[in-house]
């Protein structure tokens, strides 16, 4: 028999083989295909393309290609930066110009940060067989508790205040998730239903809090007071770059979630419950305890996503501040194959797309929604890998792809 080191090496080969055959390649091709189709969509919704087709087929085709190309160039410069501008800024040596030129890249990271937290939340739930649709609501609750700790608790140094405010966000979200968790464990109420309901309660609760108890008296519109300087997540550059500590906290959380899931006995139990609850019971795992704990941890991560936004970007809480981070998180957790590393990568993709979309609209007048369509296309291809496998004539992986086991759906 081989030595453990050799097996490890071999196992990596197997892993890579499976990975490339089953999922990773499909994801890459799905992104690629989504982008191609998005380009087609841009072309067929642009009037100039039709005008050009009236002239001749070739000029029509040329214009279509050019339009799509320009759109993606704008998307790229909007999310990563314009290489020309960057080199110009650096040669001029003006610090503000440099910061402006590299800002798109860092702004994309800022946009990715809440996604990483949210994606981790969904991924952790999936691993335990839980479909946490309530991330959006948990983000709101986490933002409320985080912002409250940010402005109401005074007299603390930043080194204590920041972690405390983040912790408040986690606790707020965690408590919000505890409710569907305990309902599932005790009564069997399905978490998909309960978390959706909890979302509505969260939205209205936050509306009410902003209007009354937490309303900043100096403002007409519902807003909370500004958080204290000591609670603000430090930024690494001067204006306009908003890149802040939250990004690294998110990465740290991804590492922690990875260790928890794959290196601890508790993660072993959690994944066992997620992939085969019957076998978990057979092996002596307490299913209810694991389920509730997984739900709480998942929502605590979501709560941190909300706290991160108020402590690092907005510095106060406004109505409708999240604009769907929670729902996108479900998609990107699937895109990332519910693995923390995958979540980071897909969060970056979503963050960059979202950030680039704005300047794309400004530069070439393509509506921001094209990015939503792009995301939707990519996700549709990932959800239906058969399409991608057929288009690119990939071989089916040997065993069934078990992306996520949602066995809880059947109770």
């Amino acid at each position, binding site marked *: 028999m081989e030595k453990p080191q050799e097996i490890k090496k071999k196992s990596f080969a197997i892993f890579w083989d499976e990975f490339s055959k089953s999922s990773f390649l499909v994801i890459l091709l799905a992104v690629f295909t989504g982008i191609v189709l998005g380009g087609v969509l841009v072309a067929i919704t642009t009037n100039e393309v039709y005008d050009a087709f009236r002239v001749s087929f070739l000029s029509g085709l040329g214009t279509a290609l050019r339009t799509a190309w320009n759109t993606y160039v704008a998307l790229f410069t909007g999310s990563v930066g314009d290489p020309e501008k960057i080199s110009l800024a650096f040669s001029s040596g003006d610090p503000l110009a440099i910061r402006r030129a590299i800002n798109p890249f860092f702004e994309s990271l800022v946009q990715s940060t809440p996604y990483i937290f949210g994606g981790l939340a969904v991924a952790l739930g999936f691993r335990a067989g839980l479909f946490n649709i309530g991330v959006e609501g948990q983000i709101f609750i986490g933002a409320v508790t985080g912002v409250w700790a940010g402005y109401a608790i005074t007299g603390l140094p930043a080194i204590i205040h920041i972690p405390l405010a983040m912790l408040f966000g986690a606790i707020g979200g965690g408590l919000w998730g505890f409710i569907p968790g305990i309902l599932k464990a005790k009564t069997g109420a399905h978490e998909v239903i309960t978390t959706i309901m909890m979302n509505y309660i969260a939205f209205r609760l936050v509306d009410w809090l902003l209007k009354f108890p937490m309303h900043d008296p100096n403002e007409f519109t519902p807003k909370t007071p500004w958080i204290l300087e000591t609670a603000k997540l430090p930024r690494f550059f001067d204006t306009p770059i908003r890149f802040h500590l939250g990004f690294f906290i998110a990465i740290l959380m991804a590492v922690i979630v990875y260790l928890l899931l794959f290196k601890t006995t508790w993660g072993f139990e959690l994944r066992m419950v997620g992939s085969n609850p019957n076998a978990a019971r057979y*092996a002596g795992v307490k299913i209810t305890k694991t389920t509730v704990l997984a739900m709480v941890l998942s929502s605590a991560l979501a709560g941190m996503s909300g706290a991160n936004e108020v402590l690092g970007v907005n510095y106060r809480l406004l109505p409708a501040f999240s604009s769907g981070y929670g729902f996108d998180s479900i998609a990107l957790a699937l895109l990332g194959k519910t693995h923390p590393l995958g979540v980071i990568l897909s969060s970056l993709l979503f963050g960059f797309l979202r950030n680039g979309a704005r300047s794309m609209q400004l530069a070439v007048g393509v509506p921001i929604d094209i990015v939503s369509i792009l995301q939707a296309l990519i996700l549709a291809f990932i959800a239906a890998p058969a399409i991608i496998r057929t288009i690119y004539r990939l071989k089916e992986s040997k065993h069934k792809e078990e992306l996520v086991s949602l066995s809880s759906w059947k109770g």
Partner: protein
Amino acid sequence: MAPVLELRGITKSFPGVLANDHIDLTVEKGKIHALLGENGAGKTTLMNILYGLYSPDEGEIFVHGKKMEIHSPIDAIKAGIGMVHQHFMLVPVFTVTENVMLGEEYVKAGGILDRQKAADKIREISDTYNLDINPDAYIKDIPVGMQQRVEIIKLLFREANILIMDEPTAVLTPQEVEELFKIMHTMIEQGKSIIFITHKLGEVIEIADKITVIRGGKVVGSTTPEESSLSELASMMVGREVNLVVEKTESKPGEVILEVENLKVLDPLGAIAVDNMSFSVHAGEVLGIAGVQGNGQTELVRSLTGLLQPIDGEARLCGKDITRLSPRDITELGSAHIPEDRQKDGLVLGFPITDNLVLNTYYLEPNSKSIWLDQKQILENSINLVENFDIRTPSPLTPASSLSGGNQQKVIVAREFSRPIKFLVASQPTRGLDVGSIEYIHKRLMQKRDEGCAVLLVSTELDEIMQLSDRIAVVYRGKVLDILDAKTATKEWVGLLMAGIIPSEEEKEKLVSKKKQILMI
């Protein structure tokens, strides 16, 4: 005369697998043709092609010498081919007549069903073939063996001449098997032809006129029972020498390990599944629980392993009542469980073999220290067990889902046997496995017994029970009807009990003396 059925060069491949590789098969009129092969050998694929469920990549089908294109079961039925599936396709709340006419209804004027006419025809068929079927009985009220005969009637009703029977004996008691064989003989006397699919060697020798053995999608040989023997067939099927007889030493029963007293357990629907069962298992012996599937075995096992709480009675493991304990508590008392459904309860298919081998010991030293899993240790453990238990896998990190059934079962056996255990519950330990794996698992079970472990063996395979057990408890409708000494018990006796018939003293003596005679010979 042209043969009734001829398959020539049938080839069918699925992505990555050549399920049928140029298979030739000739079935003659009025003969029982056994198709023998292990699970996954390609028998079912071949029959599905013949029945029109798959279309072959290559090859031709001739019926009565005429080339046929069979694209659907309807074509197959038209060609006179019928199939009795392993899992019956009957509507429980319909009568026999209604089930038989389903899809080919007789109607009177005005579209009204003519049940009478159909029932008459069923009666006629039943008489011709000695099927003993009452057309007005409801399916839910009749025993499994009779349900199977209804399936057969369905085919005869549609005038099928070639009957494919897919593992027909799997669900039957020994008496029912005998009856089925009689019926099969009657059918061939009446000019029908039968393709009998099985992996049970004894049955093939007993009933077949001709035997074709398939291995790895290829025909490896054709023979007849007269020219062949059990061990020859087994080695043809497996591709190597197989030891069919379990080497069993005299048992040395020790102290009582498990004592079950008046145990009562409900099934998930709330009906009484285990009804006042009492028995005990000693160290160093195998107590076999014989019975037709669904007579409370599942619930009994689940209640003894903490997965189901009994409503009444006691079960003491080493003197400790376990009826209120969790699965983990019971495991920690030194009990092991090979579950009935290995994929549902015994394994996490998405996990690698390494993790499946520590599924219930991951939290103990040396597999983990405080909360941290020791992955190096878990890997080393798996390397040892993969070698010791002969688990065929490219790597210990392969997911359990890509192993064959036999190797999946070996993973469970390796996991459960590698702990120090005093008590073992083995529920259907060889269900659906190939001959080679069965041989291996039986050997391991006996080894565990000889080490002084108390073994509770639950199986619906009577041969398995007879071979391995030291004492045999026969269950029927949740009750233990009798506990027999394996040395004197005969297959007929156990079979009667399995059907719920308690033989009288006279009959018992007859059965025992018969066994003695056999032993003397």
